[in-house]
């Protein structure tokens, strides 16, 4: 018989969004403030783990259909691709560039290619953390 964990489920529904938003903020803040791909990825993984803790393995597997090992490889591929860009633009490997752009809603925005590399780190960290925890959890 399952215990009725209504309070846990209700609070999780709210808190997960706050954690996800905070992790995304940390991820984007990396260039100018403490934060970055690693800590952002860990916090996102933390939010996903909270969902797993509340709802169990089965239901969340139906919601998140991306296999996490795939995320590791995707993150690595993105990170390597930012390096490969230097072959196309004929710069030394892993050269970064940045600039100010005027975007429709955000206005004057500072965009750097280092963020692309960080997206790779972010995805890999989520993938690795979730793979470790889920493969221990699923082991009978």
């Amino acid at each position, binding site marked *: 018989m399952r215990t009725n964990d209504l309070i846990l489920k209700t609070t999780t529904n709210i808190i997960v969004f706050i954690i996800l938003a905070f992790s995304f903020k940390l991820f984007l803040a990396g260039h100018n403030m403490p934060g970055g791909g690693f800590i952002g990825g860990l916090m996102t993984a933390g939010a996903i783990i909270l969902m797993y803790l509340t709802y169990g393995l089965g239901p969340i597997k139906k919601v998140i259909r991306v296999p996490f090992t795939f995320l590791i490889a995707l993150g690595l591929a993105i990170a390597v691709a930012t390096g490969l860009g230097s072959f196309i633009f004929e*710069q030394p490997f892993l050269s970064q560039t940045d600039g100010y752009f005027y975007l429709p809603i955000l206005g004057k925005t500072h965009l750097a290619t280092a963020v692309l590399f960080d997206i790779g780190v972010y995805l890999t960290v989520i993938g690795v953390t979730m793979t470790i925890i889920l493969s221990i959890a699923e082991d009978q």
Partner: protein
Amino acid sequence: MSNFTNLAILPILLPTIAAILSVFLNKQTTITKWMTGIVVIGQMVLSFSLLIYVLLNGPIILEAGDWTAPYGIVIVADELAMLLVSTTSLIAVAAAFYGFKTISVDEQRFYYYMFFHFLIAGVSGAFLTGDLFNLFVFFEVLLMASYALIVLGGGKEQFRESVKYVLINVFSSVLFVTTIAFLYSVTGTVNMAQLAVRVGEVGQSGILMVIAIMLFVVFATKGAIFPLYFWLPKSYAVPHPVVSMLFGALLTKVGIYSILRTFTLIFGHQADFTHQLFIILGVLTIIFGVAGALSTHDIKLIIAYNIIPAVGFILIGIGVFHVTALAGAVYYLVHDMIIKAALFLLVGVIITITGTSDLRKMGGLINRYPVLGWTFFVSTLVLAGIPPFSGFIGKYLLVRGGFETGNYFALIVALLLSLLILLSVIRIFIAVFWGEETEEQKEKPTISTTGYLAPIMFLLAFSIVLGVGAEFIYPYIQYIGDTLADPSYYIENVLKE
């Protein structure tokens, strides 16, 4: 204007991309096989073309992210690094094609190809980097891959040995980081060229000597030098033959390469102490390695023990610190990577045929497997350094350099002990291929060994070219020895002063 220096990163980048692709293609083993085959051959062609370019035109220095030398990360594709990367790519080709035939589909699905490619990327990176902390990172890349490969298959023995292997390597990695921290606090840099300049300015005294010895202890643990070799033989004997072959041919050699690099470039200033120590430890390493190889009846263990004396020879070559001996050490390093790989694969074939690794339970294989037998015989001669094969040239150069510097005793002992190396492997040949077939063996059907032998022949061909074609190859190796003996060559190329 095209940015040509980017080519120096390709030997690291190509296996990394292949590793990532093989995660995506994990379920389609056939496609992954094809991709692996294409990538390893591409890597070989690329490495050899870069080697030829570097030998003709001087080193390629890649300053990653366009940050100039002491501030950014440099990838230094100099003559020695490219030679070793090319040798690594040869071994990768042989390992990949041998693996297609012998690694079971289940093991392949368990991300075997990913770890294989990451191992090659880590080894290539460790050879190419010009930065001490990056060397540490690449060490970790190759060690992480090796942790996964050593348990591939999940046998009971493998679990036990992997625990020891991981423990000893984690310990030595921690010591590595600590040493780099010390070195950084003393000199304020981790770039190898700038380290060489700064250590040279103060003349490697006091605390820098301690750091040098600590660094030697780290690399000695990775490279299995007496008295830090105890973890090696068993943990190299338990995994799959292909994995043993990758470990035996590449991992310890990265350790000995790091000693060669750091103690010729950075810490070459107090040769009286450090290099005398190397000679003593080198001789002891040979003695204990050979004693181990003679002490066992397990053919895989015999070959694993044989890694140790080879490392000892190279260490003596570094200790002698003479242009000829350094060239000899490089020659022996390349020779030993190739022949150890071939021997591990040969032992793998023998174990597949007989189903045992105990010498006493085999015999008479020469009747049914003549090609295998004579291939094994040739490789024992190559290993022991019988002229005209490649081991001879390396040892000859070592001995000549040693005699010119007056290290008679150490080198005579080393030479006498190499006779025992021959004994330890010829013992396998006699026990496995001569005599009567055992009852068990008679009942087994003859297996076709063509697929197994092709990669071995491929390696042996290079080994024989290295020996017979010495007249053509030797000037280049001697040139590498000269560049090693003169640190200013490396420093000027990297720092562009």
